[in-house]
Structures are given as structure tokens and as C-alpha cells.
């Protein structure tokens, strides 16, 4: 299945703004992040506080829904999903 990934703000400093990825049926956000961090140097440190633990401010949206309110890293991927990786900014 095909999944479209969009990255924003500081995540763009280590990866492309947009990319298409291919996964077998049954893949999850965890598998997507494994693949992304394998492909992009520095992304692991930017997104994860420890193995399996995302940094607090990493917001991941599956078609506009935060995975925090779905099944977290175990949220399943579906064909045609748009996955947004979004670190909100804070300054004023």
C-alpha cells in the first residue's frame, strides 16, 4: 500500500518535505518511523527521546487525526493515508 508522508518545520532539516512510501499490509506508524529514521540521518534523535518513546512535542497525524488519540505507534496504516509529522513551534 502507498502512504504519503509530509514533514514540517525542523523535521525538514533532516528529511524531504514530502515523500511517498510503500508498505506491506498490516504496517503501522512504528514501522513507518523505523523506515524513515533508517533512511534519514538525525531523524531518530530529533523524534525519539529513547527507543520506542517519541519526544513529547512530536505530533503525528494520520489523515488529520493525531495518533496520540488513535493507537499511538501501533496505529495501523491504510492505503492512501497522508501521514503528517509536525513539531509545533512555540515562540511569540
Amino acid at each position, binding site marked *: 500500500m502507498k502512504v504519503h508522508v*509530509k514533514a*514540517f*518545520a*525542523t523535521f*525538514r532539516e533532516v528529511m524531504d*518535505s514530502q515523500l511517498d512510501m510503500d508498505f506491506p499490509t498490516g504496517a503501522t506508524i512504528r514501522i513507518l518511523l523505523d523506515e524513515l529514521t533508517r533512511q534519514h540521518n538525525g531523524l531518530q534523535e530529533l523524534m525519539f527521546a529513547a527507543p520506542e518513546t517519541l519526544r*513529547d*512535542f*512530536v*505530533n503525528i*497525524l494520520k*489523515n*488529520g*487525526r*493525531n495518533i*496520540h*488519540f488513535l493507537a499511538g505507534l501501533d496505529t495501523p496504516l491504510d492505503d492512501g493515508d497522508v501521514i*503528517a509529522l*509536525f*513539531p*509545533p*513551534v*512555540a*515562540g*511569540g
Partner: protein
Amino acid sequence: MVVLNKEQKERYRRQIAVVGEHGQEKIGKTRLLIAGAGGLGSTAALFAAMAGFGTIRIIDPDRIEETNLNRQLLYREADIGRPKADTAAKALHAMNSSVDVEPVTAAIGTAPAWDLIRGIDVVIDGLDNYPARFLLADAAWKCGIPFIHGAVEGFYGQVCTIVPKTSPCLRCIVPNPPPVRQTPVIGVTTGVIGCVQVTEAIKLATGNGVLIMDNLWLWDGIRQKSDQLTIERIPTCHICGKNEYQIPPRERVR
């Protein structure tokens, strides 16, 4: 009802051509709260004063520091050490004396949010941390007041307009906020984002145009890209998911 006098018709002639006389009157009737008089707040306040908003209440607890001058366009070198809210009020009055400017030297969280938003039609977020944003945004939501969220870092910025009972609330849009810290930022970013926030306020005031609602507008100045990220309301959200008002105790403002 505000009716434009002869001088106002002349002053706003070029924008009455855009928003109409009735639209200008509506802007003149609108009372804005600008929370924070930093980079976003000073940009938003200046453009709001120029546009002719009726009231601008501007809140900030701090004094002006040299390091503010790369982006906080209401202040001059001679203002270093002066309170931001009062200094901003003087600059806004000098820009447009017909605007009723109310400076408040206070921090969100020390002054009750209810008091700060009393009598206000629209809130513009120029704050620099999410605990304060949530306090004010929650109160605005409960009072039915639109909250125009903005935030910046480096060449990145984000804006969304939160309309109570209609759009997702700030907690749905940013459920996982970054920690409170000193953010690197360049003046052009607060300029762009502050101006987009006032654009939203003008659309809210006049009732014309399309708001950045149900999505987050993200600006990337270094790559010159902008995106709209659709964000859905979280059904279990304790602010907008049900009609109860409760601020979790862990969210104290520094």
C-alpha cells in the same frame, strides 16, 4: 453603532475601497485582546491599530530588553528597561489616536483569564509558551470568543483561528506542545505570522473571507513553502469534546 466621521473616511479611504464603509465600521466596533507584546504581539498590535480596530487591550508582564529589538517593532533603543505594555500603548496611540488602547502589565496565569478577556470580541495569541496559551484559549473557548493562535520558531510559523463550538480547540490542534524555552526567531517571521493573525481578525470582524479554521497554516520561510494541515476535533477532548470547563492542575504558568 460606530459611524465613520469625515476624517476616518479619509484616513481609511484606501482600505474602505477593500472592505467597504460598513466593513470599516465593523472593524471600528471590534475589541481585540493581544496577549503578549513581543514579536507577534507588537506586529499584530501595530497592524491592528493601522487598520482601525476600536479597542486594543495589550497584555505583557515584561520590560523591554536589547535582545527584543531584532523583532519587536513597537520599541526603540531608548525604550530599553521600560514596561512593554505601556510602551506599546504609547506607540499605538501615536500611530492611531482614535484607537482605544488598554495596556495591562500582567502575566497570563497571575491575572485571571476571565478578567483579561472580559468585553473582548477577538483574542490574538502573541504568547511564547503553551501553558499560558491553553489557559487563555480555554477561557476564550468557554466564553465563545474566537482565538487566533500564532507561534514562531526560526523561519517557521503557524496560524489557526479557533472559533468556539465550530472548530477544534487549541488542545486538539497542539496536543503535544514543545517545552517552554527561549526560542530562536528572526523578525521577518514574527512579521509574517503577526500580519496573518491580523488578517484573520479583519475577516472575523467584517464577516468576509475564508478563515484558517479546521486546519493549521504552516509557513516555512527558508524554503518558501506554505501548507494547510487539516486537523480534526478530538472526540474525547475535555475542552471542545464536551461542554465542561476544567483546567488540569499540572498546567501552571511559569
